[in-house]
């Protein structure tokens, strides 16, 4: 049952190996001539001002990540449910359960919408 999953491991290993080999081939073949002006990060032709990692973060990204976790967990509960919908004994019963689940999370979503968590500004 788990032999097919060996394919995943082999493909990851092979692609990683090919990537590293390409880096190595390029390392041998390319010119190397670093000087200070070439190595400064690009900022529309001007000198870079301030640290790159300072103060860019908007709280919007954080809210998007939290919303994403909640909806991700919701979709993963929907996957086994979707395979059981045509099972004659269970289908109506689990449909009602899932409507309750989705409705509770939809309330959270509407709250986020109304509170303006989905705006960008």
């Amino acid at each position: 049952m788990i032999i097919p999953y060996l394919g995943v491991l082999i493909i990851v290993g092979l692609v990683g190996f090919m990537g590293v080999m390409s880096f190595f081939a390029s390392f041998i073949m390319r010119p190397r001539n670093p000087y200070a002006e070439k190595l400064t990060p690009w900022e529309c032709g001007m000198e870079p001002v301030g640290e790159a990692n300072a103060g860019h973060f908007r709280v919007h990204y954080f809210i998007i990540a939290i919303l994403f976790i909640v909806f991700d967990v919701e979709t993963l509960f929907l996957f086994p449910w979707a395979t059981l919908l045509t099972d004659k004994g269970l289908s109506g019963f689990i449909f009602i359960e899932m409507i309750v689940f989705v409705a509770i999370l939809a309330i959270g979503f509407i709250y986020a919408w109304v509170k303006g968590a989905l705006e960008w500004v």
Partner: protein
Amino acid sequence: MEQLFFYIFAFAAVISAILVISVRNPVHSAFFLIVTFMQVAAIFILLRSPFLAAVQVFVYVGAVMVLFLFAVLVLDMGKETMKEHLHGQSIPAGVMAVILFLLMCYMVVKGRIVANPGSYGEAALVNNTEVIGRELYTRFIYPFEIVSLILLVALVGAIALVMQSKGKEQGK
């Protein structure tokens, strides 16, 4: 053969977990945590649970670690080393860690941490998703609905906290 793969994945998981807490840069720390989660997903496959392996990658690596990375990027630590904040407590902490480790070794060797294999043989686990779905939506229906309430609470709480701080920011 399976034992060999298990040992490889377990060893890699322990090494990357140690690297999580010992590298200086928090972004590197988050990266090694991702590697740890991938090893755990591989061990789930060895336990005949491909659904849980996919869920581990989908939720933990795909969602929770993205949140961690966004939080780490906002902390703006750069490449400075993190200073030790609790002076003089590293020796008691080390002693507690060693005691805990010895206790866990004792419990594992004596067989106190054991999980019963359950009533599903390998042949019945081929339709992994349906088996898990059947158990989840019949026997575990109450925990399932409570999960939705927990998610709602988390969502509302996060938005309330963030919107409050955003309102204060825009107010001044």
